[in-house]
């Protein structure tokens, strides 16, 4: 099945599968999963795979169906159609308990018992996961989130950031095969968010599979091996660099001290330049077919034209550009 994007993105079967260089079997296989609440479609026809040890980013605007997807994969809600295999177990109501044993979910809100201490909260969840003698596991989890010295504090007295870290420690307790983190840095200050990023990086080093939903694109860019962009339907899946390459043509940014008197004359004769735009005087973005060939040719032509060249560089596109390009397109479609 091919979900063609008019933006030229590949959303075919191959891109949804785990990368071919991945040596491990998939931790998560989702195939045409759909969830409807009555007439309302939460998400539709979602397919992707996540490899063991991969950090997989799940991006999308509010109401895109990210949290509902996490809830479906975590057996909190039943999908309307489609199939999935979570941590090697087929997703079904009968397998709910077994799947919940192997995964852990951190919802967007920490959901801590505020009248209990940090340790008491973790002891409770250790009991629910059936952990015998959980003392050492609790200490390790608290150390992992740098909360070892706050173990005896009442959760009600902790800041939002610290509560978020306790919730993260809670997800570590059961040594899960897959961790679903739903907006783990939501509402955190930059320092606290940085600590959570470091923890996720550490977990990746240890081979934990992480399914991360987030609004923070720089976070996804930094942490995720691959990302999926969801807006009720899956818009794309892939490595951030691949998505950028698929979505945006190669481009050179040329800056000159004085605006060119006739840019058309300069650029139109260059074979590798397919078109150009200029938002600011003295700044030109050239769409090129091959960067390596175009850069020296453009330089020569500019010098020949007597331009005072300040810089010639490759245009950089972030994951945010990819996201906005895709989601803006959806917003426009909704408006129409």
């Amino acid at each position: 099945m091919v979900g063609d994007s008019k933006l030229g993105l590949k959303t075919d079967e191959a891109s949804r599968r785990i990368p071919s260089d991945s040596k491990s079997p998939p931790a998560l296989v989702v195939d045409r999963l759909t969830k409807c609440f009555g007439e309302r479609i939460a998400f539709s026809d979602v397919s992707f795979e996540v490899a063991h040890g991969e950090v997989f980013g799940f991006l999308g605007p509010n109401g895109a169906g990210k949290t509902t997807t996490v809830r479906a994969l975590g057996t909190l809600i039943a999908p309307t159609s489609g199939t999935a295999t979570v941590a090697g177990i087929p997703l079904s109501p009968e397998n709910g308990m077994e799947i919940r044993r192997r995964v852990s979910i951190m919802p967007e809100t920490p959901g801590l018992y505020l009248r209990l201490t940090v340790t008491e909260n973790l002891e409770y969840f250790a009991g629910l996961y059936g952990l015998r003698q959980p003392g050492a596991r609790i200490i390790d989890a608290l150390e992992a989130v740098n909360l070892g010295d706050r173990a005896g504090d009442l959760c009600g007295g902790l800041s939002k950031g610290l509560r978020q870290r306790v919730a993260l420690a809670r997800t570590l307790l059961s040594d899960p095969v897959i961790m679903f983190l739903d907006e783990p840095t939501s509402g955190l200050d930059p320092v606290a968010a940085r600590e959570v990023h470091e923890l996720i990086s550490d977990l990746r080093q240890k081979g934990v599979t992480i399914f991360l939903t987030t609004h923070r694109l720089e976070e996804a860019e930094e942490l995720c091996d691959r990302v999926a962009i969801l807006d009720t339907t899956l818009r794309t899946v892939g490595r951030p660099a691949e998505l950028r390459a698929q979505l945006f043509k190669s481009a050179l940014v040329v800056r000159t001290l004085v605006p060119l008197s006739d840019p058309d004359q300069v650029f139109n004769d260059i074979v590798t330049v397919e078109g150009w735009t200029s938002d600011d005087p003295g700044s030109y973005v050239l769409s090129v077919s091959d960067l390596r060939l175009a850069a020296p040719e453009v330089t020569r032509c500019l010098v020949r034209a007597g331009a005072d060249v300040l810089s010639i560089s490759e245009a950089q596109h972030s994951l945010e550009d990819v996201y906005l390009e895709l989601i803006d397109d959806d917003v426009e479609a909704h408006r129409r």
Partner: protein
Amino acid sequence: MTGLDTARVRAVMGKEMRDYRRKRSIVVTMAILPFLFLIEPVVTIFLVPTTTAISGPDTYVILPLLYLLLIPSVMPSTLAAYSVVGEREQGTLEPLLTTPISQQEFILGKAAAVMIPTMMLSYTVFGLFLAAVALFAKSVVASAVFYQVPVLLALFLLTPLLAGWAIVVGMAVSVRASEVRVAQQLSMLASLPPVGLILLLAVGVIHPTFAVAFIFAVVLLAIDVRALRIVSKMLDRERLVTGSRAARS
């Protein structure tokens, strides 16, 4: 269907107990209410006219004893009504439902956490009442109270069963309610049927004999067990998390 893991039931119960202890208003309410229920029976017993010849079942004696059964009938409903919808309101339900706990384990743990303090307080109040009667009531009144063996037996036997009814009804309401206040008000209404039965016994429409107490206990036990199973099945994860029932495909 997997078996019941008692460790998980104990975990839920232990957490609830800790939570009660930390919230002073819960402890105070739990402690005060039963002792308020103690006032009327004690006053009634101590006001029994000394000239009254008491022998056999007598309203003067039976009424105060049956009045004590209101404690397990009414006291647990508020706590039970809070049990599920309260967790939902404070945002702790979803993390809990992501764990391997089963519906039965969750419900049993919650029910036990309400049942244990209810029984402890109910029996403490019964004990205090009987001790007060033995020590301070006129001997003719005291011996009349201790003569009511079927009623005393009913008191001990029906306490956990009446509490069980109030708890399962309170939890059923809590599973479905959208907010705590609604759940607590509805669960109070649900305690009325056993209260009505107690009144029928008290006013003599039903005569409190050993057989009546036994039949009443057996029927109530069957209802409690069945109701507990129904409440476990009502605990639908999807409904609790999203507010809508899972669509069956």
